[in-house]
């Protein structure tokens, strides 16, 4: 019986160790990309360019998703305001996916992401005539890395001046 108890205690200690070490590794990863990702959506500014002062050119997406985050909606409102001020500028919305999906599905996903951005611009008064959607799927990554941070930068819709 006693032996049993000792064994049980050792097991408990062992499990505790395992849990702790697992935590430690997880934390390391988290600090590595701290401030650059929320969930798996990129929140950094490394790759972002600006259409005008205070008007970022791109929004980012979670894996397999095309839902706009709060930050993305803010970016798109700034783009809409800039487009209203510059009625002669037309844009191409380039939708992209990361490399962790099959090519054809990713082409469709890129199109869906760019359309999510297009729909939002339209609700803020930008005519669909001024917007062209173009999907590149996974063909044009900005970061060639094979890691979650690189993938998060590549899951994007970029607004590019067409003229």
């Amino acid at each position: 019986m006693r032996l049993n108890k000792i064994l049980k205690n050792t097991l408990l200690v062992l499990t505790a160790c395992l849990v702790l070490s697992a935590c430690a590794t997880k934390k390391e990863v988290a600090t590595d990309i701290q401030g650059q990702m929320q969930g798996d959506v990129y929140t950094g500014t490394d790759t972002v360019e600006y259409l005008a002062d205070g008007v970022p050119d791109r929004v980012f997406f979670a894996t397999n998703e095309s839902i706009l985050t709060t930050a993305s909606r803010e970016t798109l409102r700034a783009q809409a305001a800039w487009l209203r001020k510059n009625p002669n500028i037309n844009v191409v919305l380039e939708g992209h996916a990361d490399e962790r999906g099959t090519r054809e599905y990713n082409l469709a996903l890129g199109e869906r992401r760019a359309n999510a951005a297009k729909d939002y611009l339209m609700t803020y008064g930008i005519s669909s005539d001024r917007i062209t959607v173009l999907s590149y799927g996974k063909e044009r990554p900005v970061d060639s890395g094979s890691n979650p941070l690189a993938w998060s930068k590549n899951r994007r819709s970029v607004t590019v001046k067409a003229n």
Partner: protein
Amino acid sequence: MIKKILILLFILIPIKANALIEVDITRGNLNPLPLAVSPLSIDEESRKGFEKILKKENIGSEISNIVENNLRTSGLFNPLDKKAFLQAPDIANLKPRFEDWNLIKAQALITGKVNYIDDKLRVEFRLWDVLAAKEMMALAFTTVPNNWRRVGHIISDKVYERLTGEKGYFDTRIIYVSEEGPKTQRIKKLAIMDQDGANNKFLTLGNELVLTPRFNPASQMVTYLSYFKNMPRVYLLDIETGTQEVVGDFPGMTFAPRFSPDGKKIIMSFAKDGKSDIYTMDLENRIVEKITNHPSIDTSPSYSPDGKYITFNSDRSGYQQIYVMKNDGSDVKRISFGNGLYGTPVWSPRGDLIAFTKLHKGKFYIGVMRTDGSGERLLTENYYQEAPSWSPNGRVLIFYRETKTNSKGEGFSAKLWSIDLTGYNERQIKTPTDASDPSWSSLLSN
């Protein structure tokens, strides 16, 4: 560009229906059949004739090398080292001394001779069962000398068919996307080569992005996706004449094209407003039909060989899964229910299986399942691989595989690989550049 081959094929001696050696290709073949490919014999005059036109010192040996290489790469045969052969090629072709071939453990023997007659290349070859001391097959072809590689492939196909009971796949070509340059700015060109990697040619210059070329099973036409003028559209290319045309008049991206089995229709996806649906276009009357109508992504369609059904990829359940429907879009059924995501379904030319790409826990798999989704078998696991394409006999899958980059984003590569349906005999197919999106042609000759 590709000359129509004119091959006179006649049987020298009728094939007897005796049960001789047989190779069972339904099982993973861990013990490939030992066989001897005796170099095709050639007389001095013919040898000189071919040397002059083809710049090959001994065309007989060259053709035999092709046969040997094909049979070896199939994984079903083990061609023995020529140095061990005891009998000279010319004498072996007349009447093999079976004891000599038995001694080196050959169970089958291929012999033959090649002649230069009236500016033509004439080949005859025989397949022998060494243990039974009997001839299994004897054939002869006459063709233009430039077709010498194809002669090697046709001999390989005949031997494969005689010994396995199924059609071969050696006299075929592969169209694929050649890739060069950094990962963030890949230059992609359409390229075509023989199944064994010979005769590689580039079909586009790399000025625009091109993806997913697929052969018409009934002709030398190819359909593919091109970003010409930054408008991703499905195109049709005639590889004999080089003429190209856009398929259909769609106000947006068309992609994921494939031919119907009779070659008369193209099936593809059209993306608009965040939805992708499947359409067909009849190549004769240009009539476009909408096959699926769903707010989800429906893509990667592929017909069953009888043309009655279509398998495709959809995320209507929330994630990428494989579905089967009738060719008019009715009776849609989900068939993939395992763990993970499923994409790129391709119906086997034999009709009984669907090959697919599966993503599960960060790994990519190439697998096959029955057309009702039962009997899922994963053939190979890797960091990234997708886009299986069937050999015309439905025994081998070709696909592409990408490597992980290091922390500096270096070390990326994309290569073509093939694997037997049994999961054995995985091998890389050498290409002059990086390569992806392979598509296997039908047999060029039958």
